[in-house]
């Protein structure tokens, strides 16, 4: 670190974003360099001044405009989207089910004999069903038309 020129390390230090590998060196330098300590103090003043800046509430007219825009968007959205049932399935459970189905296929292929029922077609059909039917879809929410990630089966009520 150049002691004669405040570097972005000082800002990163003030923000708590300095990587561990740089932290010790910067702290050691600050301990021995009054100009850099002064520069750091100046950066912290700017940071504090901005952090203290008040926020402004949303103007009521803007809220009304956003609501009107949204109502128009919902009117224009495809009608059938509202009829899609949604079945929320945790992604982990789905992944687990697929993994188990895959494992089952592998075990079945090893244990199958002439006297055993042919499981492969059943497992394959289940895997196809899970992969093709229980799929992640980004669909507009039925009620607010917004940002919803859902797993669904179209044939379920």
């Amino acid at each position, binding site marked *: 670190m150049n002691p004669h020129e405040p570097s972005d390390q000082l800002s990163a230090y003030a923000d708590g974003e300095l990587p561990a590998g740089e932290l010790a060196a910067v702290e050691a330098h600050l301990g021995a360099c009054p100009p850099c300590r002064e520069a750091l103090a100046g950066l912290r003043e700017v940071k504090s001044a901005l952090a203290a800046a008040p926020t402004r509430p949303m103007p009521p007219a803007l809220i009304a405009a956003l609501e009107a825009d949204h109502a128009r968007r919902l009117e224009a959205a495809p009608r059938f989207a509202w009829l899609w049932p949604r079945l929320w399935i945790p992604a982990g459970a789905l992944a687990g089910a697929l993994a188990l189905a895959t494992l089952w296929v592998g075990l079945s292929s090893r244990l199958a004999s002439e006297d055993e029922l042919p499981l492969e077609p059943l497992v394959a059909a289940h895997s196809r069903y899970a992969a093709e039917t229980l799929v992640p879809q980004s669909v507009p929410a039925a009620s607010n038309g917004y*940002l919803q990630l859902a797993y669904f089966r179209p044939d379920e009520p």
Partner: protein
Amino acid sequence: MRHDAEKDPADAFREFIRLHGEKAYNFALRLAGSDADARDLVQEAFARAFEHRDRYDASRPFDAWLCRILHNIYLDGVRRQEHKLNVSLDAPVPEDAGSWEEAIAGRDEDPSEQAVRRESQALMQRALESLPLQYRAAVMLCDVDGLSYEQIGEIMSCPAGTVRSRIHQGRVLLKKAFERQVKRGVR
């Protein structure tokens, strides 16, 4: 981000605005510098968010995604106009640039303290508006919105190292611009 499908659509969206609108509006205000432009930015951002909702990663904070959209819209506008948003330090404070001037007064402040604070905030705002966009946005996202370098990088589509550099340079320039205004006694 999920919403109860059984809620009234208008109520659900109103709640959505309550959760995310103010942060978006204030970020737009600091980017654009005027209330009218900020409103246009926010309306456009909400429209784009709805249009591209399938691209939203629900595991990430929605505010950051919306800020990224706002930032991109503003950047596109600046590029189209082929100029940077610069405010002359000698120009009078615009009437509608008072987002910080109109701050709610502290309960314990006397009128003279309030006046000094408002003036200081106005000078800081003008100094902020004089910064080039990449520095202004980086500093605001860090110091006003409290985002991490990684989050800022996602919004501004640049690496964390670039964010760090822009934040530092932005603060240095901001401090100099503010001090110049104070010395000149600009009002």
